[in-house]
């Protein structure tokens, strides 16, 4: 089934039906008696997974509504391959019909306000009451230090391409239009940011494209971090061996100024000119998390109870995925692992039980170094009863070297996680 005009009307119809629900405490209690309602804001990896597992594990006894402004799901994982030329954005774009088949109600709308004490939220098309709220808004960009980039026009000139979609295609087109011998400059923000190895995988993908089509082109990486933040030795080796002489990596290079029209950036030490300029901005919890007041750590990230992902500051509200404040990688697998623990804990709570006192989950993250070869970082994470956080278990680590075998595993990972999250 494809998303079509009728589906959009159905979104509207379900939104209308939901808004018709009475809002007084008494009427709400009557509705709750029928089945508790969990509203999930955000239909990315975390939100879609939470919604599916809430329905699946409750055998449909919980009403689940997902609010997502975009009409379809676009995968950030593998989106760097669009720059390398081995995938298109269409390959990574999926409909939400599979979730609807679980009885999940999808509302294509934007949340404008949340009242956590009254347990209701405001959409552009009306109000929606809930019993439990799950927030999975991904990341929001911080432009405080580079305000010239805080508008759509500047981002057309200087893409971030850090949320898969039109920005990914834009960067791919700019790279394709760049003359051979041109310079691609990419800026990496200070950690934490979404997808720790992502910027370095991007360098590999752009280098792979340049090797085939623009062999005289150069890549300059301006990294605000003191070193490569993930799979360091592996990336350094790949750059030296597969892409010798093409990549100039400069650590401790935080941007201080950007000239959008000239595609020129300044750091504390130097001025760098680009033919194609890709600035990945610093990040914080998605807008909805800020809206509800859940981003209480440095006004950036959300503090949660790692047994349930309940917000430490907002009642009846759970936060999963990239918005969570944790020493955990902000990856898609991590987002889904958190989502399942959260769904499990919500169901336990609704059933009057205690959540699992010591959750354990896995994270596997592959990076492609060209169209076929990939390498992993993988850990099991275990709840630490003293520190009350998730800590990596023994035995985790990274690949010995990138390989085609792991490239096949990486595609299998993508296909299985898409199947799990969206069907």
């Amino acid at each position: 089934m494809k998303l079509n005009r009728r589906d959009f009307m159905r979104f509207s119809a379900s939104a209308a039906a939901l808004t018709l629900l009475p809002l007084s405490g008494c009427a709400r209690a009557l509705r709750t008696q029928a089945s508790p309602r969990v509203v999930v804001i955000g239909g990315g990896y975390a939100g879609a997974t939470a919604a599916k597992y809430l329905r699946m594990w409750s055998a449909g006894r919980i009403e689940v509504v997902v609010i997502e402004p975009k009409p379809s799901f676009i995968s950030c994982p593998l989106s760097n391959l669009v720059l390398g030329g081995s995938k298109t954005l269409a390959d990574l774009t999926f409909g939400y019909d599979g979730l609807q088949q679980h009885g999940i109600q999808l509302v294509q709308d934007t949340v404008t306000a949340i009242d956590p004490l009254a347990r209701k939220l405001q959409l552009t098309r009306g109000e929606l009451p809930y019993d439990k709220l799950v927030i999975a808004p991904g990341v929001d960009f911080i432009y405080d230090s580079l305000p010239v980039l805080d508008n759509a026009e500047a981002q057309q000139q200087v893409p971030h391409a850090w949320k898969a979609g039109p920005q990914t295609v834009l960067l791919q087109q700019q790279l394709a239009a760049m003359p051979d011998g041109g310079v691609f400059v990419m800026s990496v923000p200070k950690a934490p940011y979404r997808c720790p190895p992502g910027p370095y995988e991007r360098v590999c993908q752009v280098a792979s494209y340049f090797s085939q089509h623009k062999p005289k082109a150069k890549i300059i990486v301006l990294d605000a971090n003191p070193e490569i933040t993930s799979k360091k030795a592996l990336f350094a080796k790949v750059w030296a061996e597969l892409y010798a002489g093409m990549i100039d990596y400069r650590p401790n290079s935080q941007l201080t100024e950007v000239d959008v029209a000239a595609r020129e950036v300044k750091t504390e030490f130097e001025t760098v000119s680009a033919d194609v300029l890709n600035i990945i901005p610093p990040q914080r919890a998605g807008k909805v998390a800020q809206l509800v007041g859940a981003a209480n750590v440095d006004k950036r990230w959300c503090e949660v109870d790692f047994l349930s992902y309940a917000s430490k500051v907002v009642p009846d509200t759970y936060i999963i995925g990239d918005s969570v404040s944790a020493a955990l990688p902000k990856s898609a697998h991590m987002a889904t692992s958190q989502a399942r623990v959260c769904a499990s804990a919500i169901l336990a709570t609704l059933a009057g039980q205690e959540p699992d006192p010591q959750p354990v989950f896995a994270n596997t993250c592959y990076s492609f170094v060209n169209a076929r070869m990939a390498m992993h970082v993988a850990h099991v994470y275990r709840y630490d009863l003293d520190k009350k956080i998730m800590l990596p278990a023994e035995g985790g680590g990274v690949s010995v070297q990138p390989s085609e075998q792991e490239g096949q595993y990486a595609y299998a990972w993508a296909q299985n996680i898409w199947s799990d999250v969206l069907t």
Partner: protein
Amino acid sequence: MLLRLTVLGLFYAPLLAVAGPDHVTTLAASCAACHGTNGNSVGGTPVLAGLDASHFRKQMQDFKSGVRPSTVMQRHAKGLTDAEIDGLALFFSQQPRRPASLPTHPR
């Protein structure tokens, strides 16, 4: 507050029949990223659903000890306790095999 909790407890009474998933069920779900929902892989990785429990246990213990060489599976096997491996073996052996599918691309 106490009153509100009591009242909620009453309203959620129908859910009491459905217990939340246990530790192993939630842990097993974490394997879905590579092995599909409840171990029903769409391909490229082994289907774990319906796998004989002793076979599963042997493979995981061999990944853990290094007897069976692996790229990524050793990372996961080494991080799990023997009890968790036993629990996962039982869980996956009890899952029905179902055809898994990929989500569709919108037009």
